[in-house]
C-alpha cells in the first residue's frame, strides 16, 4: 500500500525534481505543476487524434487525388506511359470535336431537369396528403420510401430492363387495354423516359424530408389564418409554401447533385453502351467509357472537372435564385 502511493508520488513529482537537479533555478512565473502541463498538452493534441483518420483521408484520398486529376486533365495519359502535357486540348476537343460528349451532356441535362422537378412534385404532393393527420402515417411513409432504398441497385435496373422491354410487364398491361406497345428501352425516343420514371419512382427520400419539415410549421399560423377567414388554398399558398421553401431548396440541390452523377440504371439498362443512339448516355457513363474502357485517363479527368464545375455552378445558381422564392424566417 505504501509502496504504491510512494511510486505514484515519485512518478508525478519526478520531472520537477529533475528540473531542480539540472539547476534551472526557480522560475519567476508561477509554474503550473507538471501534471497539469501534461494535461494541457494532451488536451491540445487530443483533437487531432480524434481527427487523424479524417485528416489522412482528406489529404491522401481526397485533396491529393483532386489536384492530380486537375493536372491529368491537361495531359494525355493512358496509365501505360507517363502523362504528356497537352494544355487545354482535352477541354477544347470535348466541346468542339466530340459529338458523343455533347450528346451525353444533353442527355444528362434532360434527365436532371425533367426528373428532379417531377420527383420533388410527387414528394411534396404525397407529403401534403400524408400530413393531414391520417392514421397509419408511418406505414405509408415506409411504403413510399422503400423505392428510394432499392432504386439505385442493379436488381431494380434489371427489373426495369424487363418491364420496359418489348415483351415486358408494361406492354402486357397495355395489351390488356388493347394498346400496341413497343420496346421502350430499345427506342431512342423513349429510353431516357424509362430512366426518368425510375428516378421519379424514388421520390420517397425527399418526401420524408418534406414530412419532417411540415411538422415544424407551427399550428397557430393556420389557426390565425382560419380566424382571418383565409381559405385552405390561401393558407397553403401563404403559409405552407413559404414555410416549406427552404426545404424545397435543400431537396432541389441535393437531388440535382445526385441526378448529375446517376450511373447504375443507365449502365445496366443499356448494357453499358448508353444506347440506343446515345439516348441513355449519362455523363458519368461516358466518363467511365473513356477512362476505364478506353484508358483515356487525361480526357476522362477533364470530363470529371467539367462535371464538378457544372454541379458547382448549378448549385450556386440555385442558391442565388433562391432569394427570389425562398422565405427565411427572421
Amino acid at each position, binding site marked *: 500500500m505504501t509502496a504504491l502511493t510512494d511510486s505514484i508520488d515519485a512518478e508525478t513529482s519526478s520531472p520537477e525534481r529533475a528540473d531542480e537537479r539540472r539547476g534551472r533555478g526557480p522560475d519567476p512565473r508561477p509554474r503550473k505543476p507538471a501534471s497539469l502541463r501534461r494535461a494541457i498538452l494532451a488536451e491540445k493534441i487530443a483533437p487531432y487524434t480524434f481527427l487523424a*483518420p479524417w485528416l489522412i483521408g482528406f489529404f491522401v484520398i481526397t485533396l*491529393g487525388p483532386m489536384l492530380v486529376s486537375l493536372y*491529368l486533365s491537361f495531359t494525355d495519359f493512358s496509365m501505360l506511359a507517363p502523362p504528356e502535357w497537352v494544355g487545354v486540348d482535352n477541354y477544347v476537343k470535348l466541346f468542339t470535336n466530340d459529338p458523343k460528349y455533347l450528346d451525353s451532356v444533353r442527355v444528362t441535362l434532360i434527365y436532371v431537369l425533367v426528373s428532379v422537378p417531377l420527383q420533388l412534385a410527387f414528394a411534396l404532393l404525397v407529403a401534403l396528403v400524408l400530413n*393531414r393527420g391520417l392514421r397509419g402515417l408511418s406505414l405509408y411513409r415506409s411504403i413510399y420510401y422503400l423505392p428510394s432504398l432499392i432504386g439505385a441497385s442493379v436488381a431494380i435496373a434489371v427489373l426495369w430492363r424487363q418491364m420496359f422491354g418489348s415483351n415486358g410487364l408494361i406492354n402486357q398491361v397495355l395489351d390488356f387495354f388493347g394498346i400496341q406497345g413497343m420496346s421502350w428501352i430499345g427506342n431512342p425516343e423513349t429510353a431516357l423516359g424509362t430512366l426518368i420514371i425510375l428516378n421519379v419512382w424514388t421520390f420517397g427520400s425527399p418526401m420524408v424530408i418534406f414530412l419532417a419539415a411540415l411538422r415544424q410549421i407551427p399550428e397557430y399560423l393556420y389557426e390565425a389564418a382560419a380566424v382571418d377567414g383565409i381559405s385552405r388554398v390561401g393558407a397553403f399558398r401563404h403559409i405552407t409554401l413559404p414555410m416549406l421553401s427552404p426545404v424545397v431548396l435543400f431537396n432541389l440541390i441535393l437531388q440535382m447533385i445526385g441526378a448529375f452523377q446517376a450511373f447504375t440504371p443507365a449502365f445496366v439498362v443499356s448494357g453499358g453502351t448508353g444506347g440506343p443512339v446515345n439516348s441513355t448516355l449519362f455523363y458519368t457513363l461516358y466518363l467511365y467509357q473513356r477512362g*476505364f474502357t478506353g484508358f483515356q485517363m487525361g480526357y476522362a479527368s477533364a470530363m470529371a472537372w467539367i462535371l464538378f464545375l457544372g454541379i458547382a455552378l448549378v448549385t450556386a445558381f440555385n442558391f442565388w435564385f433562391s432569394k427570389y422564392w425562398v422565405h427565411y424566417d427572421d
Partner: protein
Amino acid sequence: MTTETFDQKTVAMSVGRKKSRVRDGFSHALLIAFGFVMLYPVIWMLGASFKDSAHIFSEVSPIPNPVILDNYARGWEGAGVGFGTFILNSTIVAGLSVIGNLVACVLAGYAFARLRFRGRKLFFACMMATLMLPHHVLLIPQYMLFAGLDWVNTFLPLVVPKFLAVDAFFVFLMVQFLRGIPTELDQAAKIDGAGPWKTFWFVILPLLKPALATTAIFTFIWTWNDFLSPMIYLQDPRSYTVPLGLNSFLDASGDSAWGAMFAMAVISLGPLFGFFLVGQKYLTTGIATTGLKG
C-alpha cells in the same frame, strides 16, 4: 337562442366530422392504390422469380402458377462463379465498411462538434465541401494510387477509405446529432477529471446510439448497392460483389434467363429489406436530420 346556436354548432361539427371521415377514407383509398401501383413491379418480380420464362412474359399477375424453384437453383449456380461467393464478398465489403464508417466518422464528428483546436473552421469547411464533390473527380487518381499499392482485385480500395472517414455525409450526421446533445454533459465530465477520450467513450458515445445506427444502416445499404467502384477495382469474377455478379449474369445469359435473373435480384434485395424493416426509425430520422439520399 343560446341553445339553438349551440345545437347548430354541434350539428355543424358532426357534419364536418362525417365529411372529414369520408375525405379520410378517400385519402386512404388513394394512398393505398398509389402505393400498390408503386410497389407492383417489385411484387411482380418476386412472383416472376418463381415462374418459367413463358409465364414471365405472358402474365401481369404476380402469382406464380405453377410455382417453380428451378430459377433459384440455376441462378445460385451462376455463370462460372456461384452466387454464394458474391453474397459472401458483398457481406465482407459491407460489413467492413460499416465498421470503418462507424469508427472514423464518429471520431471526426466528435472533434468537429465538441473540441477546440487550430484549423477547426477551415477543416470543417473542407469537410462540407467534399459533400458536394462528385466522386468521379477522384476516380482516376484513386485508381492510380490503389493500383500502385497492388490493391486491385482486393476489397481494400472499397474498404480502407471508409476507415478514413471519406463519407463526409456521416461526419456531418454526427456533427448535427451532437449539436442536439447539451454541452453541460461534457463540462460535467471535465470537472470530474475526464479527458476528451474518457468523455467521448463514457459520455458521448452512449448518447450517439441512434446516429450510429443510422450510419450503420445507410452505409450497409449504400455499399451493398454500390456498382461503379467495385466494377473498377474488382476484375476477377471470384472477387465480384452482388451487383457485379448480377450484371455479369445479365451479360452472360442476355435476355434469355429472366427467371434466374429475377431470383438472384430478389435474393440481392433481401438484406436491404431486412435492414429496412429493422431500422425504419433510424432511416427516417437520419434522412430528416441531414437529408441523406437512400
